[in-house]
């Protein structure tokens, strides 16, 4: 029983970071209807930025998001303005392939620059853990969960209360109507892609103390990001938050019952079941 509780708790904690990844993807999809296959690679860029900030300037990985997040916002905005913007009206398949290509360029450029060696960012607290009532919880996971929760709360406030946030949601709801209401749709797209990239990079920074860092790490997270957003409903921010936590739990509990080798299969089977029986996701609107 205590094993199950432990798996549940660590599932929820890692799920917080997954939620961040999912929210980024879902905002991009919502505003532009583009499925970003380079999402995991943006996360990988965040991991590398964090690693080198730590290795070169001894910036704590959790503090480094102050630098990484705005930097990746600019990166994402630039990508949107120069490349993604050109294929907004293209076939969805071509958009997918374009972002796959961008992801390949990112991961292979990083490989050229920093080799494909596995890097480990080890801080004083990387392997420390807290003990609460016979259950041990990894401390970096707890810290990253707290930061994730704060960022998610800030993001909700931004999307619900600020003018720009409302304009982004309006664009996601109906691009044409938003344009007619005088919203600068192009600018919203740039902000959305920047926001999505910076969220992915933040997630990368937050998991870097507990994960191996290597150029191809992105593809694992790209797939997870899809599972999370489809589970929650494409384009739904609340859904992605929920989906992230659910996938975290499914993975961690699945790992306990089926062995860690099979936990990914659990996630993918769950994904297929959702696609088949409720393709609009838990909180998504039906596709018409």
């Amino acid at each position, binding site marked *: 029983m205590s094993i199950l509780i432990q798996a549940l708790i660590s599932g929820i904690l890692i799920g917080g970071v997954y939620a961040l990844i999912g929210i980024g993807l879902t905002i991009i999809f919502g505003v532009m209807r583009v*499925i970003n296959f380079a999402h995991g690679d943006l996360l990988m860029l965040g991991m590398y930025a964090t690693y080198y900030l730590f290795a070169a300037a001894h910036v704590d990985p959790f503090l480094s998001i102050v630098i990484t997040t705005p930097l990746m916002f600019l990166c994402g905005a630039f990508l949107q303005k120069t*490349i993604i913007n*050109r*294929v907004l009206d*293209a076939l*969805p*398949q*071509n958009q*997918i*392939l*374009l972002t*796959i*290509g*961008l*992801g*390949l*360029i990112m991961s*292979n*450029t990083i*490989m*050229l620059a920093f*080799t*494909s060696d596995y890097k480990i960012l080890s801080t004083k607290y990387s392997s420390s853990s807290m003990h609460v009532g016979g259950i041990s919880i990894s401390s970096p996971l707890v810290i990253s969960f707290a930061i994730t929760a704060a960022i998610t709360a800030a993001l909700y406030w931004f999307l619900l209360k600020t003018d720009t946030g409302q304009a982004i949601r309006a664009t996601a709801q109906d691009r044409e109507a938003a344009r007619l209401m005088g919203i600068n749709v192009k600018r919203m797209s740039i902000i959305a892609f920047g926001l999505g990239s910076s969220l992915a990079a933040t997630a990368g920074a937050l998991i870097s103390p507990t994960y191996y860092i290597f150029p191809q790490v992105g*593809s694992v997270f790209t*797939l997870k990001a*899809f*599972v999370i957003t*489809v589970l929650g409903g494409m384009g739904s921010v609340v859904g992605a938050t929920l989906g992230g936590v659910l996938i975290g739990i499914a993975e961690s509990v699945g790992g306990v019952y089926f*062995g860690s*080798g*099979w936990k*990914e*299969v659990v996630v*993918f*089977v769950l*994904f*297929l079941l959702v*696609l*088949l029986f409720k*393709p609009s996701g838990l909180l998504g609107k039906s596709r018409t």
Partner: protein
Amino acid sequence: MARYVRIALITLALGGLIVLPLYVESTYVLHMMILIFINVIVGSSWNILGGFTGQYSVGHAAYFGVGAYTTMILMQFKHVAPWWGVWAGTGVAVVTALIIGSICFRLRGPYFVLASIAVAEIFRVSALNLKNITNGAEGILVTEVPPLTVGKTLITDWASKVPFYFTGLIFMVMIIVVTALVRRSKLGYYFQAIREDQDAAHSLGINPTIYKNTALAISAVFTSLAGSLYGVYVGFIDPSTVLALDLSVQIVMICIIGGIGTIVGPVVGAALLVPLSEALRSNAITDALIKAGVVSAESKVGAFLKENLAHAHVLIYGILVVIVILFMPDGVIGFFRKFGARRRTA
């Protein structure tokens, strides 16, 4: 007139490919040709599903891997000769395809793409974990390919690259002929109708589920043949080479770069991509740059290129696909056709 020119060209190309091993002794050239054949086979088989039927599967590594694993497991552990094993491989691939198809074809557009990726990943992780069948991450290493004999006469002992060259050539001609036949038949029109508008096709009495599955089955047969050929030729398979997501992506890229939905598209794509990535892998491009005096071998840049460019052959796929989608959405073939048409009208 154009028709006779085309027939003459095809005969000439085929004749050239048949006599090539008689004149070219270089094993490197033969190796490259075999890789091109394998890439044309997978590209063309993907093209039947993705190009003609409009179903963008990004999980074709599943069929490649299923074929390769069936043939290799039968040969290595059950002592079934590969020329029987490949057909078992195609059988398994068709069954897999129909199961996958019946699940994934209920979905459309991006949702189908995501489902096809998920299914291929399930196969990869399963192959990693079912250690008593697949050897897990260690992969399967071929120790000996049995010699092929008819009666008492030895046809080949598979010692050189030539028998693999001809096997690849035969499979490639088969898939190209099948593509050409499908395209001209009623079946091909059904496929294209589904690609253009599935609902309209359905209302005209074309059952989309049946024909999408037919396209997938044809596609899976040849993808699995390519996988088996690859496995026996290279002599080693593991989940991260024959079942990887990268492989699925590469299969799609061959078609995108060449030109989707055309017969020559995958041929052009493979003939462009394989030599390019092999040249990067073997450091030929760095050597050429140094020889041309662009960078000196002793300088920092030269040393860096020499050390790292070989690992970055995938980078070229990324750059090419971005360029092609932005500037030539119909692929290289489509681009030159349009270019030719513009010149003729001018």
